[in-house]
């Protein structure tokens, strides 16, 4: 049997797809609190989930229930999962390679003293597992062997296409109550603040991104103008952040945000791997660069050879002219 970790209200399609490809019965696990009104909410979520899971071929949902599992507490979530693994002895546990999915799995792996393969894109079952994992945000792929009594792995974002799982009649709920020491709640979210809202790098259909070729903080004005015209957001490369031209929250790349807009306009960005892995999922890329040999130009869908400060004002003027 193979367990899939559910974080949130929906099963992750890429995790279920990979799980079903391994020819083992697939079950699911969800952390819920036993504390007051939140416990009722949790039951609602579980009820909705079982319908969805049955459609996706998952016949059992394990609810790990404990009062310390209210909100989010990484250590307690990891320890609770480790205890469920010791109790059920599944062949494997898979989770989404999100920040939280990875964090919970790493805590569980450390406590269960098991290896953990993160960001897998493909797995061949058996013993050991042969797997392919993404390194450096997808800069390189690593083929590796995973040898362990229980295989723990996270699945890279967008790794597998959703599978046509054979639906089952119903998904049964089984409760598991872990023994958690109160001190495990020492790492717990004490306050949550909502984001600014509006268009973000993660949601923008178009990103106008600038690097060294923009030349200065003031140079971004024309990128802002184009982004506003296209209903998009402004991004930047690591050079721009390190020079203090843009805040780090604008940075696209391995150590910034990974983006996937309809169009990514890379202005004066050479295209080092650290940046490339952050924008490679864009549906189309337009590079504007003075250097025709720049890696970004070679890898882009479209390119204009020229200075950002000549090309972008002309593009802005052309858009205005056509819309008037």
């Amino acid at each position, binding site marked *: 049997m193979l367990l899939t970790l559910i974080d949130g209200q929906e099963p992750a399609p890429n995790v279920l797809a990979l799980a079903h490809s391994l020819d083992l019965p697939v079950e699911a696990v969800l952390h819920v609190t036993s504390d007051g009104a939140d416990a009722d909410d949790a039951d609602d979520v579980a009820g909705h989930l079982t319908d969805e899971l049955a459609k996706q071929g998952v016949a059992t949902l394990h609810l790990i229930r404990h009062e310390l599992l209210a909100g989010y507490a990484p250590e307690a979530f990891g320890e609770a999962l480790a205890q469920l693994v010791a109790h059920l002895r599944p062949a494997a546990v898979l989770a989404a390679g999100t920040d939280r999915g990875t964090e919970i799995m*790493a805590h569980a792996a450390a406590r269960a003293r098991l290896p953990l393969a*993160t960001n897998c894109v493909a797995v061949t079952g058996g013993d050991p597992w042969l797997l392919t994992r993404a390194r450096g945000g997808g800069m390189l792929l690593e083929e590796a062997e995973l040898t362990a009594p229980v295989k723990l792995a996270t699945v890279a974002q967008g790794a597998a296409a959703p599978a046509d799982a054979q639906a089952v009649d119903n998904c049964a709920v089984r409760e598991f109550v872990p023994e958690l020491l109160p001190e495990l709640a020492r790492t717990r979210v004490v306050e949550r603040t909502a984001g600014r809202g509006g268009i973000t790098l993660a949601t923008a259909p178009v990103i106008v991104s600038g690097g060294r070729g923009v030349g200065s903080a003031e140079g971004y004005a024309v990128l802002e103008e184009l982004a506003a015209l296209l*209903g998009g957001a402004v991004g930047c490369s690591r050079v721009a952040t390190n020079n203090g031209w843009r805040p780090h929250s604008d940075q696209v790349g391995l150590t910034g945000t990974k983006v996937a807009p309809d169009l990514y306009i890379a202005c004066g960005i050479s295209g080092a791997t650290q940046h490339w892995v952050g924008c490679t999922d864009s549906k189309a890329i337009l590079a504007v660069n003075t250097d025709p040999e720049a890696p970004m130009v070679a890898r882009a869908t479209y390119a204009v050879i020229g200075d950002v400060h000549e090309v972008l004002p*002309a593009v802005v003027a052309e858009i205005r002219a056509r819309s008037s």
Partner: protein
Amino acid sequence: MEILVCVKRVPAPGAKVPLSADSREIDTRHLGFTIGPHEECAVEEAVRLVAGHGGQVTVLAVGPPEAEEQLRYALAMGADRGVLVETGPAELDPEATAAAIAQAVHTVTDGAPPFDLVLFGDSSADAGHYQVGIRVAAELGLPIVGGIKGIEVGDGLRLRREVPDGAELYELPLPAAAAVREGLNLPRYPNLPGRLRARKASLRTIAFEPPVGGLRKLRLRQPADDRAETVLLGQGAAAAPAVVDVLEELGVV
């Protein structure tokens, strides 16, 4: 306050990541090496915290003897002591790396004050296993939160991290650990006095026989690049009409 920062020697690739003939490793003959960006921020934060609260910053690297270069860079940024856990040239599995760090912490703190804070980068810039910090913290019995972009030290530790829909704040009792992300601060470039001091500083070397972990790297390969040839839209301002044609075609304008 006593702070430990763990750093890793990683290749600094440019536009391509060359592989060795047997595809087992990155071909580093023509590459420079660096501390990962997340870890550079960890060193910077530690140096700032000690400047405000007193104490010492120890930097620790697990790796080949050449990792001395990265330790000296961290010393040049303002760290006080360097510890190299020598494990040879082969890449370690994350369980082995964590075991090396945990053992070194016990060795270094034997007869010395314990660390109040242990900082890691959120993930290494090359292997990206996202777990060494959590494994070390579990081994040392410390609370840890990852993805941290804000640190405040008071009676305890206030840690802030960004999540898809906003931010989360954690309050941990000290001693504690945190894995930080670039954006936490803007790391300084080492100045000349710092570089001179770092060059002369003595490093402590600890030998470690890494255990065999359960995750074994077999080979590396480049991801398939199935993108079509780039369509050139023109040169300079004259390309604007062709650009806007494409924007219209893509339905983004």
